[in-house]
């Protein structure tokens, strides 16, 4: 009987193999070269567009993340205590630390500011689903402009970056305002709101209908809310859908329509509009976006406009940004078997 076999026989024993916890991996070799190569190529795109590199600290006060991303997100950060008992968290995202720093250091007269970063973020994830808990991110923040032109700039930069990974990339864009407006027209408790959010993330309109059935509010609002996750289409198809929707709600789509007009023509085949794209971060105020490439079954880029995040840190700066999970496609589906 060799010792490897013995380890399995003694599951509860103290003989522990020297392994790694779930969701982290040791990088090296070809994989590291590939990531380094892509990182430098995309960084160069950011620099060319006038973005300046920043490196937020690896950990900050838990409170910062709670203020910035909301308690649900902060709870999923890795936290530990400082000497004086204050709670600290490894950075869950880059946007919140950069917003905190910007709010401390800069005034209105310095705007607009353009930052880019690369580094790791740390998130607790469900186990056994192949999800990483240490995620390498590369991204930008454009702070100080609420114009649609700024949205177009950021989406275009995302497109240029994703092109480095897959020439057939997709960018999905949405806007959370119509969703939030419809919710505000209904009387809902917190668990109901959370359930509706979960249904939107999965486009589960069957459960959505059931939750809304008992909620007090107008039937018209409920019908539009139930149909929202299915309002998905490429630019031209979305324009047609927008025309058919009740004109009362068109103000919540005008910004997206304007954005579609501003985007470079060669992006038409790459951009999909999804009115059900509401994302998990509380801080998004209008535009939301995701990026997809062939190498991964999930979104490898996430972002949006967060015009109110700075309020948590005492400033009123409109801002928009995205992050690309650069090392996260280490599981690549093979489709040509």
């Amino acid at each position, binding site marked *: 009987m060799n010792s490897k076999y013995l380890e399995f026989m003694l599951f509860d024993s103290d003989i522990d193999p020297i392994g790694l916890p779930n969701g982290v991996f040791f990088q090296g070799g070809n994989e590291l070269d590939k990531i380094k190569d892509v990182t430098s190529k995309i960084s160069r795109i950011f620099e060319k567009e006038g973005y300046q590199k920043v490196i937020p600290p690896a950990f900050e006060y838990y409170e910062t993340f709670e203020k910035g991303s909301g308690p649900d997100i902060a709870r999923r950060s890795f936290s530990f205590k400082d000497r004086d008992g204050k709670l600290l968290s490894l950075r869950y995202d880059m946007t919140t630390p950069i917003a905190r720093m910007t709010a401390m250091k800069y005034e209105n007269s310095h705007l607009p500011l353009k930052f880019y970063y690369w580094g790791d973020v740390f998130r607790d994830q469900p186990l056994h689903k192949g999800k990483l808990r240490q995620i390498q991110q590369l991204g930008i923040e454009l702070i100080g402009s609420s114009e649609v032109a700024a949205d177009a700039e950021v989406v275009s930069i995302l497109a240029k970056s994703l092109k480095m990974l897959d020439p057939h990339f997709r960018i999905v864009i949405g806007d959370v305002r119509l969703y939030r407006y419809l919710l505000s027209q209904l009387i809902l408790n917190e668990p109901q709101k959370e359930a509706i959010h979960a249904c939107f993330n999965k*486009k589960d309109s069957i459960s959505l209908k059931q939750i809304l059935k008992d909620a007090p509010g107008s039937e018209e609002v409920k019908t539009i809310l139930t149909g929202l996750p299915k309002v998905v*289409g*490429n630019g031209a198809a979305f324009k047609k859908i927008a025309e058919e929707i009740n004109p009362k709600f068109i103000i919540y789509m005008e910004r997206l329509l304007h954005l579609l007009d501003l985007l470079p023509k060669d992006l038409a085949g790459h951009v*999909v509009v999804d009115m059900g794209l509401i994302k998990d971060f509380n801080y998004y105020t209008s535009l939301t976006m*995701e990026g997809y490439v062939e190498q*991964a*079954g*999930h979104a490898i880029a996430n972002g949006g406009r967060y015009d109110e995040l700075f309020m948590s840190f005492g400033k009123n700066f409109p801002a928009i940004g995205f992050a690309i999970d650069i090392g996260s496609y280490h599981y690549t*589906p093979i489709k040509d078997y």
Partner: protein
Amino acid sequence: MPVTIALPKGKLGEDAEKAMIQSGILGSVVPKDSRRLIFDMGQDIRVLLVRAWDVPTYVEMGAVDLGVCGKDDLVEHDADVLELLDMDFGHCKMCVAANKHTRKEELFSRSFVRVATKYPNIAKKFFSTISVQAEVIKLYGSVELASVTGLSDCIVDIVSSGGTLRENGLEMMQEIFESTARLVANRSSYYRNLDTISRFVTLLTK
């Protein structure tokens, strides 16, 4: 690149296959006379036969583009997939059941309950919503036996006609939710093959 669809083995998969043939997505039946698991169905569709349990995982991770599976499995896995359509078959109910003559009020007011189930996450969540401390015992099939033999105080399982419960002297105590078969898509596949997948959804809706 063909669109790959994961169909569950068993009744649910047969119903799904029927629906896909009727709607014209599949041109013919998937040949089941061999041990093959991968089938090229025409130029642009590939079918994979997968255990029903595993469909959400294959779809979530992007190993396949589309899949058909029960809502019960989706809830248990908390699968991060897009639910595109209620297929309107595979109707069943997730419920708590126990030996006949057990009083529901008495069972749910105990300070501690042992629950046998194939769905540990759902069982745990249900008993925590009614504030009952539950010890969940994970089993892989014929869960009714656990209640009959006294291995557990009750079970959490799916019930379609209720025949199996009755024949083994069990009774439904509480319905948790209704389940049907769903057409699910991988997020990345959905957006990258939006036209094809939307066409499939339209065909299946008719």
